[in-house]
């Protein structure tokens, strides 16, 4: 920085002002550059969504499952925050459109001001979208883990089927079949001639079984108990949840792609800021009175003679 005497500061104040005016766009561009980088916010600061326990959800019919999860999310803090963010981004987008039109119609310094404002709004839009993506990622990861837990719960009965347990279950099934096959014969032989009176347990059991049969039949034909149909193929609950899991995984991949888009947008905003600062510098340089550099050689003659 050149040393300007104090008396020159007040008489030629424009000597300081060019420096300041030159620095302003650079400072502005630096601020845009620094804040335009899309940084990942730590998850800890985001609102929460704790879905219902997987034990409860696994018991729900497949048709109701997705709706229940979506409804639970919509009522959570995370869901409400995403909705709020969605509204903000919509308004910001409208603001960008309006500023874009204003830039087209403006002129001179006003145009430059509006362009500055547009850049700031673009930066703000990127920040909102980045924040929304972070929340969406949290939602999708939570959903993914939920589906994984549900599949684990559904598969638990198979996973625990050790060799000895399977052998036992087979024997129990065989015993049951033999029992049911011989039941009528045994009843006739035991209870004929009132040799053994029919116990209260037998009487009540028969009565309850009739009621159970009717209820089971009604459950089977209930609308909410119907299986999900996919291209004419009836899906089991496990297949349906696996489908939902794959869907969630693909949404996460799309989200990562959207983050790339935001990254490129941020880079463009930074480059636009540089352009703006360059233009501002040019304007400053044209109008500035730069100090003339006097060479000592010009005063050499004065030193040749005394």
């Amino acid at each position: 920085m050149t040393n300007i005497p104090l008396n020159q500061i007040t008489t030629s104040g424009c000597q300081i002002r060019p420096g300041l005016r030159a620095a302003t766009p650079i400072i502005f561009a630096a601020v845009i550059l620094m804040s335009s980088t899309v940084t990942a916010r730590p998850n800890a600061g985001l609102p929460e969504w704790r879905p219902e326990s997987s034990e409860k959800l696994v018991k729900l019919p497949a048709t109701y499952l997705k709706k229940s999860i979506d409804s639970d999310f919509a009522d959570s803090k995370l869901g409400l925050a995403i909705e709020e963010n969605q509204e903000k981004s919509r308004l910001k987008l409208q603001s960008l459109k309006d500023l874009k039109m204003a830039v087209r119609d403006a002129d001179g310094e006003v145009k430059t001001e509006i362009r500055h404002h547009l850049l700031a709004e673009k930066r703000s839009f990127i920040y909102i979208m980045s924040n929304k993506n972070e929340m969406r990622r949290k939602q999708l990861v939570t959903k993914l883990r939920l589906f994984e837990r549900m599949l684990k719960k559904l598969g638990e009965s198979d996973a625990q089927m050790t060799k000895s347990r399977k052998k036992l279950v087979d024997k129990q099934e065989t015993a049951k079949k033999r029992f049911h096959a011989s039941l009528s014969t045994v009843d006739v032989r035991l209870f004929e001639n009132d040799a053994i009176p029919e116990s209260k347990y037998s009487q009540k059991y028969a009565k309850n079984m009739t009621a159970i049969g009717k209820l089971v039949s009604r459950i089977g034909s209930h609308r909410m108990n119907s299986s999900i149909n996919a291209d004419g193929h009836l899906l089991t609950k496990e297949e349906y949840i696996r489908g939902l899991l794959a869907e969630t995984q693909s949404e996460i991949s799309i989200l990562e792609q959207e983050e790339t888009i935001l990254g490129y947008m941020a880079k463009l905003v930074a480059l636009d800021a540089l352009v703006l600062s360059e233009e501002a510098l040019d304007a400053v340089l044209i109008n500035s009175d730069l100090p003339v550099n006097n060479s000592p050689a010009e005063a050499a003659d004065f030193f040749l003679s005394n």
Partner: protein
Amino acid sequence: MTITNRINFRKLTTAASLGVLVCAVSITDSNAGTLENLERERALVIESILNPELKPEERAEEIERAKPRLVDLERIVLRDPKMKGRNTPTVRRAFENYDLTFMLHAATERNLSITDNWLSQIGITTQSVMSAPIRRRSGE
């Protein structure tokens, strides 16, 4: 209320709560399984079968008295949904041999007495008894 009374009241309520807790635990503990109840009844029937001090008619009478209880208990075990896959040694052993565990149903199905069916399941038949060689036990 004086301090002594307050302390006594607190001790009383603590004792009462502990008592209720112990009762609740005891009730839970004493609820034996359906299979255990059947095994108990089955053991009594086998004891009657093997009791040398009983006369034949007394033996038959005891077995007849056990039949109504046995038929219900066997059916309760066979119909118990909690039994499925319960991989304990007792359950595994019970379902290893239907005829030995569900004595009454197996015997009735084969149109045999409980005694005859049980003895044949453990390998004691008229033929095996009659064909058993008479000889000295080793070591004597």
